[in-house]
């Protein structure tokens, strides 16, 4: 299986494991493969000062500083995907044709503030 993000309970902004199972959403009779995949998602804090590994934009650095001075007035920056990977899905369409389709930005590889 693909390497999965570490699962230590760090509060910082980072990818979190999320496995999407197509049978859970009732799609198993028309999706041929995969049966599911690791989509992951981003969650965590962007505290001041922003550590280098938090993949931050300059604006995020600014916003964390203002947040540290005025927490009520300015929220922390968001923790969002900054690097994503595509996946391919094999499925039957409405005319029973077999379709292979590539979808961009379906897997969160890295998060940032």
């Amino acid at each position, binding site marked *: 299986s*693909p*390497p999965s993000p570490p699962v230590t309970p760090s509060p910082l902004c980072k990818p979190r494991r999320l496995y999407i199972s197509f049978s859970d*959403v009732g*799609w198993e*009779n*028309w999706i*041929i*493969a*995969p049966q599911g995949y690791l989509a992951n998602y981003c969650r965590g804090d962007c505290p001041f000062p922003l550590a280098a590994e938090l993949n931050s934009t300059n604006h995020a650095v600014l916003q964390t500083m203002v947040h540290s001075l005025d927490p009520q007035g300015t929220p922390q920056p968001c923790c969002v995907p*900054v*690097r994503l*990977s*595509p996946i*391919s*899905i*094999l*499925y*039957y*369409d*409405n*005319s*029973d*044709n*077999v*379709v*292979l*389709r*590539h*979808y*961009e*930005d379906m*897997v969160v*590889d*890295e998060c940032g503030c």
Partner: protein
Amino acid sequence: LSWQESSLLKSLGLSAKPSPRSPVPVPPVLWRIFQRRKELPRPHQELDSCRVEEFNVPGNIVRVFADQGRFLPEEQPQGWLCLRKLLFFNLSVLEEGERLTMAQLELRFQHNSYHSPRPGQVLELRLYPASPRGQPQPGRRPLVERSFVQLHKSLLFKLSAALKDGKMPGRNLTLVLEISASSGASGSPRSLCAGSDALEAASLLVVTLGRQCRGPRRRR
């Protein structure tokens, strides 16, 4: 459909949840492409999902359409004509805004020909554009014209150039396939046609570029 499901399907480019009635086996070529992509190293997958490397064409959707045509019995067998068949591919599932970048016809035969052909035993194959009713369009040159000596498991024909400029050929693609024995060969037409009886199925592989790949890419 719950609204979440329908909005997710829509974002995946599907207007409704498919419910296959008679699922066909997965074409090996699609399975190979799927497996190859799945095994690429993550997460640094420098993959262009808007290009199909295996065919070296732009595209993010690969479909295989089964032939829904019929033999044109009323005119065969006749003389050197061994086989005449209407090939009909229903392309209505292609969405508005999809651009066709490759079309490949596959003719699958039941067996490999193990008999070494007699000298001069040549089969000729022609593909004509046709009207939906199967009438070859008078005066049109064949899209493909090819002679072959030995039948293989399947014959592949690139039709992209014939389908001009990637324009969608309307809602369906209709062709007339003719296989005939070369009139110069020795032996009876019937015996020379024996190989063509082994035609098992025809399918059309189409690569298209969907809207997601044609607009400006989202910036981070």
